[in-house]
């Protein structure tokens, strides 16, 4: 009963929100602007109304004002293998746009969380069967079971309608339209209604693409279409075939911007703003991100409440791979006036900029994460996966993901499932680290990784040099790594290091002195929080420093010239 989170400020979702959701004030709403949902009746096959004995429960926090979970006892237990058929009438009042769902001016409606969703009945990690029912609390998304949907929408005929699923029929008569949608194997059904939408339809690799956007955003239609095509092409090739016949992209108008940035099965909501140039590809990144959720969320329907990293983290990892693949790993996020950034680069920086002394593990329920949600769940997970890819190689990594996808599509995989698949697939890959230890420290630990070269020393002897260098791992994450040693004659040598915490000294008796030492020269360990201190050289290239110093001189001159125009 997600919609009841928006019933008033007393719900568990809103009571600690500080009166703001996504930066918008919500506390002073009128009664009309809140939303709610109630079940009017739920009949079993014998026509007995079960709602009379229903009650709201609050398993997370005991907040009796929270009505996001309702427990409806059956007249008789439903035994394994049995089927129950129930008929339900419910009433939903949509709120003014809040946390995506609701209405905004000029008849825009995003209908999500508009119907009562059945919780998932599953085995917990101890193997005990039960309902996985968590309240809608901050820091969590959704978890639901797969189903087939037939949805009939009746609306005024001046409205454009889009949604999860495929349109199976459409009739218009006397100012009214009736549209039927059908979808199989989806965990949720959302739809959108707006009078101003332009609709762009195309098809790619057998998948229908439908883009709904307000006319002022028409410049983005082609960008969205291309982003979806890139996503489809890449995921089809590297993960598995897109499991649905269609994808709908909703671009909300500016007044409903809070409806954007979200994923629903077969339907995503993007976000754009008039005038964003093509060189700022955050628009494409977002569309690709939400599209990848069709794999990690819609198909591999992990519990987003308990293990959000399993969808957001994997999605970010593939968002980065797709955008970097099509737009370059140093320019896929933006490339404007000489400033540029790649998508994976951006994700890593989201993680490395965090205050690492206060970081918690990523594999824990959303309501227990009170730190930097995005930096941990999205960015640390994607950097962890990129690190794993660096350690085992991309082909092996792809095989892990493909096997995981094939094994668990249309199921609810958990951490243990992914780890088991990874262990099985990587068992025949030559590697020098313990996979279990890798996941334990990355998912459940708080340690960081920071390699550093401390010093290089060369003492001339009769036969050459007594050389040594000292490296250190400043954090507690332990990954094996290569150290590239460069000698004066430009010869290079690779040395292996287990990357354990603390200092390590390497001693050599080379003919030529060591001029440079570089840990992880290809930056495979993406979780390393500082690449700059990974190397030390006797022969540094000072040109860039001079170049940027000259630039800063020139920036200062320019600032002085322009600020003094009235002086």
């Amino acid at each position: 009963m997600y919609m009841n989170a928006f019933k008033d400020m007393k719900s568990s979702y809103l009571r600690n929100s500080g009166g703001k959701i996504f930066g918008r004030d919500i506390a002073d709403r009128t009664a009309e602007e809140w939303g709610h949902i109630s079940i009017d009746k739920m009949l079993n096959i014998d026509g007995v109304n079960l709602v009379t004995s229903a009650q709201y429960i609050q398993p997370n926090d005991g907040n009796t004002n929270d009505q996001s979970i309702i427990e409806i006892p059956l007249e008789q237990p439903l035994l394994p293998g049995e089927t129950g058929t129930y008929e339900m009438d419910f009433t939903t009042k949509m709120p003014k746009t809040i946390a995506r769902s609701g209405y905004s001016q000029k008849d825009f409606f995003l209908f999500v969380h508009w119907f009562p969703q059945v919780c998932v009945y599953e085995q917990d990690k101890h193997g005990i069967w039960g309902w996985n029912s968590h309240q809608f609390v901050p820091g969590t998304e959704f978890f639901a079971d797969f189903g087939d949907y037939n949805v009939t929408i009746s609306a005024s005929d001046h409205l454009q309608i889009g949604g999860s699923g495929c349109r199976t029929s459409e009739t218009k008569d006397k100012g009214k339209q009736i549209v039927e949608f059908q979808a199989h194997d989806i965990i949720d059904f959302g739809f959108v209604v707006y009078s101003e939408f332009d609709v762009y339809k195309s098809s790619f690799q057998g998948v229908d693409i439908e883009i709904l956007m307000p006319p002022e955003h028409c410049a983005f239609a082609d960008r969205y279409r291309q982003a979806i095509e890139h996503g489809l092409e890449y995921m089809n090739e590297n993960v598995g075939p897109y499991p649905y016949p269609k994808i709908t992209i909703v671009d909300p108008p500016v007044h409903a911007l809070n409806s954007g940035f979200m994923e629903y099965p077969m339907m995503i909501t993007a976000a754009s703003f008039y005038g964003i140039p093509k060189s700022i590809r955050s628009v494409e990144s977002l569309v690709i991100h939400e599209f990848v959720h069709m794999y990690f969320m819609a198909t591999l329907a992990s519990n987003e409440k308990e293990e959000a990293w399993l969808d957001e983290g994997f999605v970010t990892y593939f968002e980065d791979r797709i955008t970097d693949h099509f737009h370059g790993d140093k320019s896929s996020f933006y490339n404007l006036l000489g400033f540029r950034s790649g998508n994976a680069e951006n994700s890593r920086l989201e993680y490395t900029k965090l205050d690492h002394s206060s970081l918690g593990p990523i594999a824990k329920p959303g309501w227990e994460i009170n730190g930097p949600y995005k930096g941990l769940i999205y960015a640390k997970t994607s950097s962890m996966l990129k690190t794993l890819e660096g350690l085992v190689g991309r082909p092996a990594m792809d095989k892990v993901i493909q096997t995981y996808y094939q094994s668990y599509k249309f199921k609810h995989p958990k951490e243990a499932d992914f780890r088991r698949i990874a262990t099985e697939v990587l068992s025949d890959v030559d590697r020098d680290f313990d996979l279990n230890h890798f996941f334990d420290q990355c998912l459940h630990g708080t340690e960081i990784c920071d390699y550093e070269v401390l010093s290089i020393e060369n003492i001339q002897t009769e036969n050459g040099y007594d050389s040594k260098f000292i490296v250190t791992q400043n954090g507690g994450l332990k990954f094996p790594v290569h150290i590239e040693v460069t000698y004066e004659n430009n010869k290079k040598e690779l040395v292996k290091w287990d990357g354990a915490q603390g200092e390590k000294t390497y001693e050599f008796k080379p003919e030529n002195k060591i001029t440079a030492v570089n840990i992880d020269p290809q930056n495979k360990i993406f979780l390393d929080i500082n690449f700059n201190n990974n190397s030390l050289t006797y022969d540094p290239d000072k040109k860039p420093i001079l170049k940027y110093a000259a630039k800063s001189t020139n920036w200062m001159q320019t600032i002085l010239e322009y600020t003094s125009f009235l002086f």
Partner: protein
Amino acid sequence: MLQRLKHIWNRTLTHKSEVVCIYAFQLIFGLLIGCIFYCTVDDNLGQSMALEHLALGFDRTIIMDMVNSNDEVFSGIISWVTILIPCYLIISILLQGGLLFNIKRGEVGFKSQIKNGVKYLLPFFGIVLFSIVLVILFVVVVGLPYKAIVGDPLTTFSSEKPFVFSLMALAVGFSLWVVLIWGFSISTRYSYINGISFWKSIKTGFIFVKNHLIELLSIGYLLLGIHILLGFIYYLIMGDRGAPSWLIVIFGIVIQQVFSITRVFIRGFGYIAVDQVEDEFIG
């Protein structure tokens, strides 16, 4: 028209030593920041092979890893910039006041520029403050009501287009206002140099702007256009070349300085253009 522009340019060239003097002061302040920047980055990256990547062009990872591993890395530079800018602005009143004196009185040379700049420093400081008040006036009279009407642009409008266009219109209005204040500020200082009292000079400045709206706006937008064009050309030439060789680095520095001094010449050109309009007005 071209003849007139050529004449103004020729007059600008006769004041090249004053222009160079302004440029030299800007360069000194710029070099101060440049040196601090060099030392800061050298301390943090000087022995790292990351510099080899930076030599290929802008690299956000290198910059951000430096900032993340040392939060204070650029704070020294930023605090120096915030100190140096106000200091320069005071010096600028002197240097530009001296240039205006030389233009008006037909004198040349930086000695006269400095001497007379010092002499007029205080009254010109007053004119600068008055001009700044006029700029703030726009914010109060137009900006605040605009903000009140627009409210939260994300909910007020049915599309962001009217908001974007209204912002653009506001920017154009602001630029018009600023160009006129710029003309007023120069004209007022010219009047004061001619021996008219402070408040009378202010009044003359307003009258001048009122009578020469079109000329002032033409000059102002011509200069603005040249600056935008210069910025575009600069970007085309420099782009993000990285630092693959010393030749490229030195070439970059030369180009930067050519553009810097050109900007100061354009300033001199603007002053003389206003003087020319004033002369033709009086004549």
